[in-house]
Structures are given as C-alpha cells and as structure tokens.
C-alpha cells in the first residue's frame, strides 16, 4: 500500500505541471516573438491543405508581423463558436454558416465595407446579396465561392445499360428502377441518399430539387406569404419509389459511406454539392477501375419551367467585431483569401467553384468543368430570401415532426403522402399565422420570388 501511495504522490506531483501548462497561450493576441496572432476558424476540410500552404507562405513573408493561425473545427464549428462567444474568446475570423446569422443580427460581426479598398469592392460587388451578406448598407462577408446541388451519376452504369441521363422526374425514377432491376444481382442499385439524419440528407438533395420544380422554398410561397407543401407530392412519390427500390440501408447511411459505395460502382445516382464531390473522387475515394462519374441538373417534373434553387455561399468569412486586431485580420484575409492569384489557383485546382466573375473569367477551365459544365452555377441557382422559419428561428417552433423528418418518414412509407403533407401545411401555417397575429413579424412577401 505504501508503495502505491508513494507512486500516486509522484504522479500527483507531475500531473499538475502538465495539466496547467500551456493554458491560454494560444488565444492571446501576441505570442512570444511579438507577432500579432490572428485566429481563423473554419470547417472546410476538402481544401485545408491548399490554404494551409498559402497561410504558411504568408506567415513567413509578411512584413506586418502578422501570424495567421488556420484552425479546423470540422462539424462542430457552430457549437465551438457558440461557446467561444459565451466566454468572450471568439476567434478573429470565422467561416460563415447560416447558423451565425443570429450573431450578425446581434452585432457581433464587423461591417467590412469600411475596411475594403475600392478595388476590392469592385472585385466582389457581384457577390453582395441583399438580406444575406449585405444588410442595411453593411457588408458582413464575401461569398468567394459557391456550391450548388446537382445529380451525380455513374456514367459507366448508364452507358452499360444504355440509359439516358435523366432530365425529368419520371426519367430519373425509371433509370433508378431499371438499374436496380437489372443489376441488383451484382449489388448495384439505382439511387441512394444519406438519410441517417433526414434533415442533413434531404436538405442537400430533395429540397433544392423541389425548389427548382415548384418555386417553393422550404414549403414557403413568397408570393402569398403562406406555407403549402402540396406541390411536394409528386416529388415525394418519386423519391418513395426510388428509395424503396434503391440502395439498401439508406435510412442509416451517412454521406461518406455513401460516397465510398458510389466510388466502388454500387450506386447509380445521388445528389450532392458541386464543390465537394469532384475532390472526393479524386483523393478520398478514388473511383474504382473503369468507373466514371458524371454530373447533371436536378431533374424536375416534365413540362415545368425550372425555378430558382438555392445555392450556398462558400469560402466566406466573418470578422469578429470585438477583435482587437480587426485591421490585422483584414490585412491577412486580403492577402491570402482576396488574392486573385490564390483564388484562381484554388479554382483551377478543383478545390471549389469561384463566385467572383473576375476570377472565373481569367481562369483556365479544367477538364473537369469542360466535361461537366453542370458543376458551374447557373442563373437558376439563386440566393433565396429568408423564410419566416429561417428569419425567426427562435420564435418559429413547429412542434412534432419537422418537415425533413416528415419527408423522411413519407419516403420510407411510414406515413401516408397525402395526409402527411396536409398535416405539415396546416402546422406550419398555424405557426406562421400565430406569429403574424402576435406581431412578431409582418407577413413576409417578396414578389421577386413569387411562384409565378
């Protein structure tokens, strides 16, 4: 026993030195060498190596004594920033996600217009979106890249069965069912979606498809200022057929296992973001021998005119209003991320799709974009205004199954389509009407985004 105790005492003596050491040093504004340390938090992992290299070069060469620390927070960025704001230790620069809108409204992020040169303004002007990053004459971030939703398909399988790349909903369903029927024996299925978390999965596939086909955004009609999920019905039916004849186990699938199966040639089609997939099949999950992928626009009902579907801003950063080094942060950002050469190299290297005309026009189109022009943003990829649910997330609480989980359950055949949709419409409208009558907001109508 004595031995044990003395051993414990030794450990006790050592542990505190390790435990307490290296406490707060990394958040302090200046490190030992007197450099101004700027912290940048992002959750982009696909181009991390590219930017790290640029950051290193900048840190080594800049004459302002600035050190940019490029930190990756993967999927927990939102929670990390939440906690950081609570403790007053937020980083100087944060990658933008929609979740941070509440902080923009709260004044936690800086208006960057006063920091910008006229040149920078001209360069980015096309990427100022009213109500998104440009609010009441203030600019909060610059979407230098964009990412759109497309249908990715396995060319090899389509060629083998002589199938046409689907343009309409019916063609897509038919292709999905045909592939499954013909090739099921080899473990190849027509369609897949990562439905383990229906919100994650359907938000990047089903929802933009319906937007494109119907002009509704998250079930909201900006023309009437009401919710209506009825037009979702044909899409729900189509998805139900595709999923039920699709890759087994979609309901417990994450996106990465899905991609690894797609790369192995086991999946005919799925939908995802344009910025990520090319790189994924280049480095993370190289396509199996002889397999080739293709990319096309989201199929919609025959005869329907394509409406706007949402696209997401990418490669965009917010600046902490409380940062003591706002100027230095902007300097570092300008030198690295607003640098035309870097942006061109980023685009040409296939790390992302530029959202700035200056960059796009002066860049060389790589073979990837030549072969799959659908990867690029079109006029039908639009920046939607906020629906009431998005604009007032704290008040707009729909009890029971939310829309994505309802869709998931309908697609799985757990809930009847008609009654499920009717119920959703009723519940969402009830909340909307209640909040309007309580004066939380006025009915949100935007004729530019009306269904017609």
């Amino acid at each position: 026993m004595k031995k044990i105790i003395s051993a414990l005492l030794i450990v006790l003596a050592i542990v505190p030195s390790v435990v307490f050491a290296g406490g707060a040093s990394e958040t302090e504004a200046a490190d030992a060498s007197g450099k101004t340390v700027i912290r940048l938090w992002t959750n982009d992992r696909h181009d991390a190596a590219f930017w790290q290299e640029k950051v290193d070069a900048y840190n080594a060469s800049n004459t302002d004594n600035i050190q940019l620390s490029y930190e990756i927070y993967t999927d927990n960025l939102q929670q990390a920033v939440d906690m950081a704001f609570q403790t007053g230790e937020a980083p100087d620069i944060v990658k933008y996600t929609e979740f941070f809108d509440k902080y923009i409204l709260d004044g936690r992020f800086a208006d960057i217009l006063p920091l910008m040169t006229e040149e920078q303004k001209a360069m980015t002007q096309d990427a100022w979106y009213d109500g998104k990053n440009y609010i009441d004459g203030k600019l909060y971030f610059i979407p230098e890249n964009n990412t759109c939703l497309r249908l990715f398909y396995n060319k090899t399988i389509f060629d083998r069965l002589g199938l046409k790349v689907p343009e309409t909903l019916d063609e897509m369903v038919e292709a999905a069912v045909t592939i499954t029927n013909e090739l099921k024996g080899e473990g190849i299925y027509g369609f897949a979606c990562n439905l383990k978390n229906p919100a994650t999965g359907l938000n990047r596939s089903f929802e933009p498809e319906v937007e494109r086909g119907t002009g509704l955004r998250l079930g909201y009609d900006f023309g009437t200022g009401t919710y209506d999920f009825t037009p979702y019905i044909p899409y729900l039916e189509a998805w139900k057929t595709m999923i039920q004849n699709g890759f087994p186990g979609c309901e417990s699938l994450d996106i990465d296992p899905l991609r690894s199966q797609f790369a192995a040639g086991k999946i005919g089609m799925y939908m995802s973001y344009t910025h990520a997939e090319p790189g994924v099949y280049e480095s993370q999950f190289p396509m199996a021998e002889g397999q080739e992928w293709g990319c096309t626009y989201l199929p919609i009902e025959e005869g329907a005119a394509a409406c706007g579907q949402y696209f997401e801003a990418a490669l965009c950063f917010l600046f902490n209003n409380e940062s003591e080094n706002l100027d230095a942060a902007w300097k570092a950002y300008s030198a690295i991320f607003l640098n035309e050469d870097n942006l061109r190299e980023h685009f040409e290297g296939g790390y992302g799709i530029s959202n700035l005309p200056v960059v796009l026009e002066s860049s060389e189109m790589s073979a990837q974009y030549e072969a799959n022009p659908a990867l690029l943003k079109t006029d039908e990829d639009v920046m939607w205004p906020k629906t009431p649910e998005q604009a007032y997330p704290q008040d707009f609480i729909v009890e029971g199954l939310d829309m994505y989980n309802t869709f998931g359950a309908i697609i799985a055949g757990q809930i009847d389509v008609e009654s499920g949709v009717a119920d959703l419409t009723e519940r969402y409208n009830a909340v909307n009407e209640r909040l309007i009558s309580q004066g939380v907001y006025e009915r949100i109508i935007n004729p530019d985004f009306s269904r017609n």
Partner: protein
Amino acid sequence: MRNLTKKRLKESMYAYSLLGPNLLLFLCFSFFPVIWMLKYMFFRYGGAGTSETFIGLENIMRVFRDGIYWKAVLNTFIYAVGKIIITIPISFSLAYILNKKIKGSGVFQSLVFLPTIMSSAVMGLVFYLLFNVYNGEINRMLMAAGIVDSPINWLGADHALKTLVIVSVWGAIGNYMVYFLAGLQQIPQEVLESAEVDGATGFRRLWNITIPMMGPILKIILMLAIANAFNDMNMILVLTEGGPYNASMVMTLYAYKFFFPVSAASSVMPQFGYGAALSFVSALIAGAVTILFLRFSKKMSDIY
C-alpha cells in the same frame, strides 16, 4: 452544554475539511445542473446571441403534447427491459459457472469482461461496419452459414431498436457478471458444503440456497442496471442517432438533440428551455421507475 457545542463545532470543521473537496464537486457538477434545469425549463432560450424569455409552463405542456417524446419514452422502456432481461440471466449463469473454479475460468472471465472496457462510442462505429445491410460482416456470415437468404436490415426501422439491445447486451454482460461473481463469493462456502453433505443436487442448491442468498446484491445490481439502461445514449448517438425515423430514439438522446442540434441543415437553433423540460420529465420518469422497483423489491423481501 457549551462544551458540547464547541466540540460539535470542532467536529464539524474537521468533517467539512474532509468532505469539502467532494462537496464542491458535487455542488458544481451534480447540484448546479439540477438548478440550471429547474430554471431553464420555464424559459425560452436559444443560446448565446439570443434572449431569454420567461414562458411559464409552456415547455412542460409541450412535452405532454410531443408524440415523438412519448414514443422515445416507450422505446426507452423497451430498450431497458430488453437489455435487462437478457443481460441479467446470462451474466448470472456465467458468474455461477465461472465461480466454480473450472479450468480456464480466469480466461473466460477476462474475455467476457473485455467489452466493458471498450469505449461505447468507438464501438458504435465498429458496429456500423458489422451491422450495415449492404456489406456488413454479420449478414455475410449469416448468409454464408445459410441461416438467412437475404441480408437483414439490422439498422432499419424494424430492427434498429433490437440491434441496439443486442449491442448493449454485448457491452453489459461482463459488467454484471463481475457484480454477480462478487456476490457469489460472498456466500460462505460452508453453507454450500453443508448442503452438499445433505445430498442437495446442483440445481437444488442453486435454487434453494444460492439465489435466495443473492437477494440483496441482486437488488443492487438490478437497480444499477435500471439506472444505466435509462441513461445509455453514447452508443445510440453514434450508431443510429435515434433513427431511422425515431425508431430507436430514447429519452436522453431526444433531449440532447435540443441542446446540441447537430445538423447540416444549418439554421437549426438550440432550444435549451425545451431540452431542460424534457430532461425534467425524463428524470421524473426514471425516478418513478426506481421508486417503484424499490417498493416492489421490498415487498419481495418481506415475503421471503
């Protein structure tokens, strides 16, 4: 009289000096969360950057309207009962056998105990590889052995909860086996020996002597098992996230999702108030089950 108070004061100071460290930890990490919950269940609050609004009983009423939550409660009961009625007999049998100093007893004990030292979150990842329907190891082996013709969708809506029970049994039998072993070793050898002399056979000894003498420890083990089963969520979070379509959603995980809404459909805001209300009702339910069990087991021991 004055002396007595003084002595008591001195004694108290001594007691607090030893109790202090633990008491502080208790106040910070056990007591404060309860107070926090009791406060926020009456508020609407979305985390930093949003305002706190007092809304009275609105959150609690919402809990009672929330069908998904009550489904999760039902799932929790199915999960807990399933886990306990499978685990306890297996653990007891193993302990009974391995307590008999048979050859290799130590090796078997260690092998069975292994899962309890594995991180359930990490194993959640491994079980996905084992159970997934498209190329999981389990399906492949079952099909190779000719037990099933087509792959079973272990993680699908029909089976997910059962699969979680299997996985939780896997993680728990070693733990409860050790408890039972401890209990068995407590039974004086002489009692068993004298029974043997009296000619009682193995099974009669087990039934008439061993099990009744295990009474008190059985009670404690069951109590721990109930508390654990109601609190399990690491494995579920990693393996199914409560899905598909809430088929494997349990109480604690459901509340967790309101505190930490992990979703790429990004503007989802935490609902701390509602999460707190859910936790409060869940704590009441778990507490009620424990009290009922205590009552019941007391009655049982009164009868004996």
